[in-house]
């Protein structure tokens, strides 16, 4: 859970989030590239979650593993929900939705890392 994949996800989400905030400030609706970028981030997050789920079966389980699974479900669903809402809102606010979604994702990944560190041994 603490590997380069998590770091890549956090960095990608932060960079994209800042990009969307700038685009929103410039009063731009999400364009094709913005929406594709969000789908790309969703795919990256999905890979991260799949790796974490595999880890649950072959590695050490976090002692608070039901919370961990709850966070995993939230995390994998998050970017697609942002994408869906942004598609409904072809204004600057759609871009802000993408930005908010991107800035919440790193928090989710950090929480997952915190929970994963406490293993039952």
């Amino acid at each position: 859970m603490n590997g380069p994949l998590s770091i890549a996800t956090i960095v990608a989400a932060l960079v994209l989030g800042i990009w969307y905030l700038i685009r929103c400030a410039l009063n731009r609706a999400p364009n094709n590239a913005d929406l594709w970028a969000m789908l790309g981030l969703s795919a990256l997050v999905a890979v991260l979650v799949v790796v974490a789920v595999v880890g649950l079966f072959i590695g050490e389980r976090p002692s608070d593993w039901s919370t961990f699974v709850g966070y995993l479900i939230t995390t994998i669903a998050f970017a697609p929900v942002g994408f869906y809402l942004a598609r409904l809102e072809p204004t600057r606010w759609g871009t802000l939705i993408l930005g908010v979604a991107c800035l919440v994702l790193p928090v989710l990944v950090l929480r997952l890392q915190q929970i994963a560190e406490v293993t039952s041994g």
Partner: protein
Amino acid sequence: MAEPTHTEARPRDAAIGTGAGRVLLLVYGIFALSAGARAGVQIATKFSEAPLAFLLSGLAALVYLAATVGLAVGGNRGRLVALTSCSIEFVGVLVVGTLSVADQAAFPDATVWSRYGSGYGYIPLVLPLIGLWWLWRHRPRD
């Protein structure tokens, strides 16, 4: 997914859950989920430690859920639900925030409204104000 033309004028009868309201909808949804999950875990696993704090935590989650639904449904009823929830939220974050600072023994475990929502970047303090501003700005005109 074509680049749309920008129009600044927003129709008077536009639903409150569109435009910036849709961003509010997302943020309220996030809070309903995170506060609800947290309260659920607290009530299920260690309710006896601080019943008051955890019940308030559960109430906060319900209020966020009501605000989300109110914004999503829209219309007069949805607007009223959202207005009530935002008001309760603002009072709640002030009261619980003050209580958690004054009486730390009763609030041993962080809830979404503890210390004015500092664990959530003070967003719980600002969010109801943004919600109330949005609802006021799009109040029905006759």
